[in-house]
């Protein structure tokens, strides 16, 4: 048997080949390069595929329809993270080297990866855009100049949900029982403090029940819920956990009309899998679903017609796909904004950061971009890297998500106070002197 020799030879050849391929393959010169740490395999692969499908489709649209951003073409590369922190770091490091100006901005699409990159981004001068996830206190741009938890954060979501429930309950939550059914991870624990504060303030009873990863087994949690008989259940899940929660709720007979998910628990992927069990379920959203927006039509007409669509055509107009389109739009707009200051050329991360921090997209601009009401307006500043903090509630009709509320806001005041406290503590721990970077 000589196979060990062949093995060694093969291995050596493979390694040599890879090593040769390792040096950063230069991206097309003269393009604005966007690094994408995506995930399409693993437990959350379906979610990632929808989001990044939309994200890339929008980038394609900008190139195909507008010839880039003011003539600067966009280019991008994906790197698979499998929703794994270590892999995320590896992808980040890999993408970082891919172009002379860096990867424009990173959307980690994972709270864990965001945490792992928070320290690295300032050193590498790469903006992290965390749309609806990540570290909430990073909203304080004086402590986290490079992180943009844009639009709304988890605390906004939590207070928004409480507000929504409060409205449903006729404005008074005193004595009511609310359960938080959460994914037992950093992500799931994000709303704890703010919900506890809300409970104290509004006088409702709060019980928090963890579901261990990945969440496909919730029998005991729901038995607990049934015993406890809450008025509402807030579903703070991700991936397979959501559909399981809905199905188990149906099994134990808990009304879905009394369940509200956050925006990661409110996509077609969750409800379609759950089937009829999802009917009537509410979820907060950062964006509306549906195809009735000019931008979606443009993507279908220009990108998909040319066969350059990235996502699964069936996903067009879904919650996560639309979210991806929105996230891409924010990135592109940050580029556009930065170009105003630095000129119409390929820009560095540092310049994009300025663009991001000075982003101001009002309703008019949204309309011009073809988003209409899909997203709320957004305006950022050095102290506020978040934005409106608005959420909108949708309900699953059995075939689609239908908006059932206006853009509403929770307890913005409380959230802001908590953000500043938390950010200050972090700054102290890390020895950061808060301040604005400017341009």
């Amino acid at each position, binding site marked *: 048997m000589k*196979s060990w020799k062949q093995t060694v030879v093969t291995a050596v050849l493979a390694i040599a080949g890879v090593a040769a*391929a390792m040096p950063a393959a230069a991206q097309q010169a003269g393009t604005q390069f966007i690094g994408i740490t995506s995930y*399409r395999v693993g437990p959350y692969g379906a979610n990632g595929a929808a989001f990044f499908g939309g994200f890339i489709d929008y980038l394609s649209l900008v190139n195909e329809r507008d010839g880039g951003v003011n003539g600067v073409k966009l280019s991008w590369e994906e790197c698979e993270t499998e929703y794994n922190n270590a892999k995320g*770091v590896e992808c980040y490091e890999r993408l970082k080297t891919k172009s002379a100006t860096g990867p424009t901005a990173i959307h980690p699409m994972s709270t864990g990866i965001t945490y*792992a990159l928070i320290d690295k981004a300032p050193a590498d001068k790469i903006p992290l855009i965390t749309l609806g996830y990540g570290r909430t206190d990073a909203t304080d741009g004086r402590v986290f100049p490079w992180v943009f938890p844009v639009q709304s954060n988890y605390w906004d979501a939590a207070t928004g949900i409480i507000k929504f429930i409060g409205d449903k309950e006729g404005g008074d939550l005193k004595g009511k029982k609310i359960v938080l059914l959460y994914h037992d991870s950093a992500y799931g624990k994000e709303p704890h403090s703010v919900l506890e504060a809300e409970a104290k303030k509004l006088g409702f009873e709060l019980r928090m029940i963890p579901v261990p990863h990945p969440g496909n087994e919730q029998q005991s949690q729901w038995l607990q819920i049934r015993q406890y008989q809450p008025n509402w259940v807030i579903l703070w899940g991700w991936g397979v956990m959501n559909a399981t929660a809905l199905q188990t709720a149906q099994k134990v007979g808990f009304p879905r009309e009394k369940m509200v998910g956050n925006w990661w628990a409110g996509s077609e992927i969750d409800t379609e899998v759950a089937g009829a069990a999802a009917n009537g379920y509410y979820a907060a959203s950062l964006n509306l679903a549906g195809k009735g927006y000019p931008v979606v039509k443009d993507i279908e007409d220009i990108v998909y017609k040319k066969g350059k669509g990235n996502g699964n055509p069936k996903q067009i107009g879904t919650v996560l796909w639309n979210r991806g389109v929105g996230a891409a739009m924010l990135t592109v707009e940050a580029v556009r904004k930065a170009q105003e200051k630095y000129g119409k050329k390929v820009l560095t991360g540092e310049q994009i950061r300025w663009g991001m921090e000075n982003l101001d997209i009002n309703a008019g601009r949204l309309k011009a971009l073809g988003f209409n009401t899909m997203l709320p307006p957004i305006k950022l500043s050095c102290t506020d890297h978040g934005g409106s903090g608005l959420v909108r509630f949708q309900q699953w009709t059995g075939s689609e998500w239908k908006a059932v509320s206006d853009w509403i806001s929770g307890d913005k005041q409380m959230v802001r106070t908590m953000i500043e406290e938390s950010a200050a503590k972090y700054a102290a721990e890390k020895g950061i002197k808060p301040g604005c970077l400017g341009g």
Partner: protein
Amino acid sequence: MLYRESGQFKTTYAADQQLFPIRQDRYAVLLLLAVAFVGIPLFASSYWLTALLIPFLVFALATLGLNILTGYAGQLSLGTAAFMAVGAVAAYNFQLRIPGMPILVSFILGGLTSALIGIAFGLPSLRIKGFYLAVATLAAQFFIPWLLVKVSWFSNNSASGVITAQPIEILGFAFDTPARKYLLVLTIVAVMALAAKNMVRSSIGRAWMAVRDMDVAAEVIGIRIMHTKLIAFAVSSFYCGVAGALYAFAYLGSVEPDGFNLDLSFRILFMVIIGGVGSILGSFLGAAFITLLPIFLDVLLTEGAAALNLNLPSGMTSMAQLVVFGALIIFFLIVEPHGLARLWQILKEKLRLWPFPH
């Protein structure tokens, strides 16, 4: 072939017992160290350092820790990640709560804390063996992260349970660039690997192996079984603890207890198995195989697809990578069930005999 040992003879036991008795090995190791300590920091990109080498070294250290316990002392454990978590969280807390605490001392204390916990979870090994012991160590794997999450004091009441490691500074010198972090990790790993090698060739290492191979005989020649096993747990956990601290401080920067899950424990166990049970070198080879090969494959497949202008559906390369990686693991295990280290040993033996076959 490369080994030309003629004329290398030993006139003292000291020479015969040195770490690398063959001159060519000594030179190779020196060369390797020179490359690792000088060449790499000078030339490697931050991607190589941060994304490949630092995690490789950290995992190698954890693998070393598990290998000491499983490979040398014969006690199967599935709690590696938990011990890493202890090390990471303990180092974080020592750093956080004791002002002016030198970071290296924090690492050591983190390791020692982990060692203590390791001893506690090693106690069942006195009564149970093998598979059953593995199940007992699973308890550690479930209990420790749960505890760290449950008691938010450990994460300094962080909302999410995530701890964010403090910056590394030794005697006023900040280890803030990838190269510096790499050098720090490399130094720690090199010293600890040397220490591990020394331990396994000293009386404690022989006691471990004796207990592993034939515990009755070990007892009969006067080895205290309990003592020996607990030391193995302690040393192993110490290594894992330091690895955990480095994982948090030098690699990711922030970690959540749930990151130290069973998955990670299994990964490290795979590293031990692929690398070679009961081999220091194997720990490094295994860590390299499991941490680096998927990345190489990924890059190879991505670049390969790009070079060939294949417009593969997104996610396809990732799938392919997983398939190839899995196949390679199986292939290597079939070719050499005793791991890469054994493969290397056979190769070395062949080279020493070259051009003869036996």
